[in-house]
């Protein structure tokens, strides 16, 4: 036992002194050049055929953003952007009006940087193959969306929701309180309409209409349109969701 005491001290000194070396090792790993290794060459060779196609199809600039659009906050600029983009495509349902647009926050997979936006950015934002649908539900069902908003801050358009102390204080569609017996047209994805992300209030609708349009393509349509108008897209929030204590 007596012999072990000094060893213990040495052990501690050495243990401590190891940290800088490990730090250095990993800093170095950031600077590996792709050309350093034969493996990465093989990898890049085998990737090039695919890369060419993807780059061609996704490199096109479709819009310009005046600022970064992100998922941050209760109401997010990204959520508002996607809702606007879906709403722009409502003509895919001729003769119908859209009361509300609903998206799930978890389904938005990437923020958008300031400046030029390419098709690739929209792929990263919306990688899924989900399609745009119009679901008609009763006001009673629509109100069941509110607890989901409280829990996960899902993006929406066409409603104003005030939450106080974790409870719903007011829920308006347009400027009117929700009528439990009235039909509301909800523009959303088929994934959510099938009850995805626990959105079961959408899964027994009065009616559901498909569009055949992918959500991703719907967003690309919107960006293309804004570009045609030579307009930059501005990030914004308008206070549609207010959460207070």
């Amino acid at each position, binding site marked *: 036992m007596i012999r*072990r005491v000094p*060893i*213990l001290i*040495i*052990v501690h000194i*050495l*243990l401590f002194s*190891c*940290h800088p*070396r*490990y*730090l250095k*090792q*990993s800093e170095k*790993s*950031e600077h*590996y*050049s*792709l050309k*350093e*290794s*034969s*493996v*990465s060459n*093989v*990898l*890049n060779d*085998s*990737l090039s055929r*695919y*890369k060419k*196609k*993807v780059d061609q*199809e*996704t490199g096109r600039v479709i819009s310009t953003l005046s600022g*970064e659009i*992100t998922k941050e906050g209760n109401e997010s600029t990204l959520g508002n952007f996607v809702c606007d983009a879906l709403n722009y495509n409502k003509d895919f349902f001729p003769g119908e009006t859209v009361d509300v647009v609903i998206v799930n926050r978890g389904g938005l*997979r990437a*923020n958008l*940087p300031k*400046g030029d936006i390419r098709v*690739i950015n929209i*792929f*990263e934002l919306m*990688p*899924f*193959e*989900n399609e745009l649908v119009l679901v008609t539900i009763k006001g009673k069902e629509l109100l069941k969306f509110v607890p989901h908003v409280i829990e996960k801050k899902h993006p929406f358009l066409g409603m104003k929701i005030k939450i106080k102390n974790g409870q719903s204080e007011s829920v308006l569609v347009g400027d009117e309180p929700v009528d439990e017996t009235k039909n509301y047209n909800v523009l959303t994805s088929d*994934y959510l309409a*099938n*009850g*995805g*992300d*626990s959105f079961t209030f959408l899964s027994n609708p009065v009616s559901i209409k498909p569009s055949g349009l992918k959500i991703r393509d719907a967003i690309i349509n919107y960006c293309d349109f804004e570009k045609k108008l030579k307009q930059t897209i501005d990030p914004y929030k308008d206070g549609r969701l207010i959460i207070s204590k």
Partner: protein
Amino acid sequence: MEDSLFQNRRDFLKYSLGVGATLYSLGSKGTNNLLVSKGFTKLTILYTNDQHSRIEPFPENDPKYAGEGGFAKRATLIEKIRKEEENVLLLDAGDIFQGTPYFNYFSGEIEYKLMSLMKYDAVTFGNHDFDLGCENIVKQMPHASFDFVNCNYNFSNTALAGNKKVFPYKVYKKDKLKIGVFGVGIDLENLVDKRYVKDVVYNDPVSNANKWATVLKHDEKCDYVICLSHLGYKYDTNKISDVLLASQSKNIDLIIGGHTHTFLNSPEELKNSIGEKVVVTQVGWAGIWLGKIEINFSPYNKKLFQSNSAHKI
């Protein structure tokens, strides 16, 4: 926290301090040889989770991860480590698919091909790996030279039924060591479009994990048992997670997790249901980090020394 690269090196001295202080200067090849000459066997576990089809690094205008990640860079690093280390195991904890157009255009073919070139040993299924259904996994499997492990999904009524690349567990022999690897997956309900996974039956991950871990430890006599998990690190609710699984487990040494995209600053050491050590780790997502855990086994196959680091890619 997400942006900080963990550089914590955790060292566990399992039994005798008398073995000597030289153990602590591990890492350079010379001292490693010294250990090897004393009969120690070193295992290097490399791992990723939630790669999400991030084949190329994040674009330079990405607000958060500009230039980070990328399969080619990772391959370079792995190749370097393989040159230095004898016994390397390369694993992934699921969600290989979905997240860049490479998946939308080629349905996972490239991911599997490139991971095969990197010589992955085993992966488990994440929810997004089912995004185009079991049929698509089967279709892409010819491009994969690695094993798929999962013990809590029943695929009997799916395209994966009887598949020859899917196992509840696999045992990998590395020098004198036997390493058992098995996988557990998350409840797919509400995570994957029902049309794609309605026939995949989800069974309890805890009881199945314990069942197969016991088989690996006692029947297969594995020196070390690794669980590849796509349950998620931990939740505010009582939903099953890696942390809960760890506390209810037996015979698991290491849980490599995924799903919650958690950048764990260092692997977490927890106690299992009988008070033994179990380590939980996860390295974020998109191949931004490559996790590395090194363990030296004594000639008597007792774990002696463990260290970890994450390499930013």
